[in-house]
């Protein structure tokens, strides 16, 4: 690979495939993550997101295809790739035998980092994730949100060029989630490339420049959040609750909208909601919500509403 290409593309996947025995969990996926971008990997549980991330980190060996990070092929150069990467795994794996500050110090050691600069770096990172006053606490004394923040600080200890985050905000309260979003935006502004998996569409919409939606191991859509919304769903949505079974008659055949009903809620996807909302204003017994289409609508539209797992 030439130098110029290596400087623009951080991750390059061509026909990457992973099979466990007969089961194909990642199917010939190809994508490029340019430097400085926040790239999202979206998909239902079991879609192949975590396996893809593991392959990028050399923690899983690809069955077929070519995968390079920083221009280095995996899995052969896993160690070199990981030296320049920060990882926030899906499940906490902080070291319970150490305090918060010690966790960072010991982890830095795995990268061969030590010396006087390290103490400054640790102090800066603890400040970055607002854990300065907890430096000497034990890991089991931290809340879920604090553990995540510490994991993010740990992922930055080697000043990585690429930060890989596997569902970084799953299970967190809104305060913690917003704080992590703010930190991730800071990281992006500082020029780092982010690879993010999530099933919070709101998160992807806020953070990602470009994203892939994968299902059953294959890419089913790719683009920026706005482009995906334009391409896959009508721009406006009206949600109706408590309308009962007669809703379609109520809306009339001329409502010019695509209707999906789930339980007691009816979703009307439309290009022009005005005729519908005007009619609904006149029916005070019905509660409705009028909103712009979002990434979640795209996601449900193309991966379906069936439960996974």
């Amino acid at each position: 690979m030439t130098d110029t290409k290596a400087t623009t593309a951080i991750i390059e996947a061509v026909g990457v495939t992973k099979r466990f025995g007969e089961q194909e969990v990642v199917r010939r996926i190809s994508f490029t993550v340019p430097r400085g971008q926040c790239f999202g990997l979206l998909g239902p549980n079991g879609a192949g997101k975590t396996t893809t991330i593991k392959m990028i980190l050399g923690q899983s060996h690809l069955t077929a295809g070519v995968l390079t990070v920083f221009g280095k092929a995996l899995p052969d150069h896993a160690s070199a790739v990981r030296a320049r990467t920060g990882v926030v795994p899906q499940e906490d794996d902080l070291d319970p035998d150490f305090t918060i500050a010690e966790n960072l110090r010991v982890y830095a050691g795995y990268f061969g980092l030590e010396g006087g600069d390290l103490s400054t770096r640790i102090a800066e990172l603890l400040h970055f994730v607002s854990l300065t006053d907890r430096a000497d606490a034990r890991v089991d004394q931290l809340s879920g949100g604090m553990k995540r923040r510490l994991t993010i600080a740990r992922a930055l200890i080697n000043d990585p060029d690429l930060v890989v985050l596997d569902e970084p905000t799953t299970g967190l309260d809104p305060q913690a989630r917003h704080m992590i979003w703010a930190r991730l935006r800071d990281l992006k502004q500082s020029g780092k490339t982010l690879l993010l998996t999530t099933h919070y569409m709101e998160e992807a919409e806020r953070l990602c420049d470009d994203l892939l939606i994968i299902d059953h191991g294959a890419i089913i859509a790719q683009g920026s959040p706005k482009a995906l919304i334009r391409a896959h769903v009508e721009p406006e949505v009206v949600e109706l609750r408590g309308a009962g079974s007669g809703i379609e008659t109520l809306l009339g055949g001329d409502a010019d909208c695509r209707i999906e009903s789930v339980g007691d809620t009816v979703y009307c996807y439309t290009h022009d909601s005005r005729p519908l909302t005007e009619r609904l204003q006149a029916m005070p017994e019905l509660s409705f919500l009028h909103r712009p289409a979002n990434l979640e609508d795209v996601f449900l539209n193309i991966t379906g509403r069936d439960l996974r797992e």
Partner: protein
Amino acid sequence: MDLRVPRVRPQALKVWHRNVLVWRKLITPSLLINFGEPFLYLLGLGFGLGAFIGEMAGLPYLTFLASGIVASSAMNTASFEGMYSVYTRMVPQRTYGSMLATPLDVDDIIAGEMLWCATKSTISATAILLVASLLGAVLSFAAVLVVPIVFIIGLCFAGPAIVMSAFSKSYDFFNYYFTLVVTPMFILCGVFYPTDNLPATLQSFVQVLPLTHAIALVRPLVADQTLTNAGLHIGVLLLYAASGYYLAVILVRRRLIV
């Protein structure tokens, strides 16, 4: 399965160092156990039983027993660390998972763990040696050479123990290894009596077991006897260590690198 021959790199010392840092936090209870248990053994068996036995194979029984306990304690310590502690770090605690997000790889982790197991073996065996010398059981200054020897004994038993961890689904599995492997060696390999007294078939079986070779190295150094076939005995221990390392790396790769 990834059968590539593992590379031993200096990075392994980072894994070793992590364990040293954790051990330092628990140094008091650790050392208490390291000194307390052998002290009881030597006091109870060495003096209590020794009073009836007098001499064993031309040695005071306390000396005979102490040299056996030094070697078997190196075995026990490495086996225990290689199973319970390694499994804890590999499975429930996910420490290896976090290490595999750094430049460290499985080869480094297992090498570091084996060095740590051997370090703990050395600490516990040295503690026993000190207790034994206070009780007058150590007959030669050559006994200081036991310290590097028990390090090798630790390496020898660390590999197979980590192999067990790589297979295991839970802690219960380790009971089999202790009952079927560690305890038989403790009883058969010459800790309490010379192996020459065993039936001929059992003797040849005992000759392939590593603890026999470990004791053959330790006892002459403690008892001021001539050390014979040192190269062979060390070779056997290193062979167990190297094949244990290779097998452990392959199996841990299979478990962690999916």
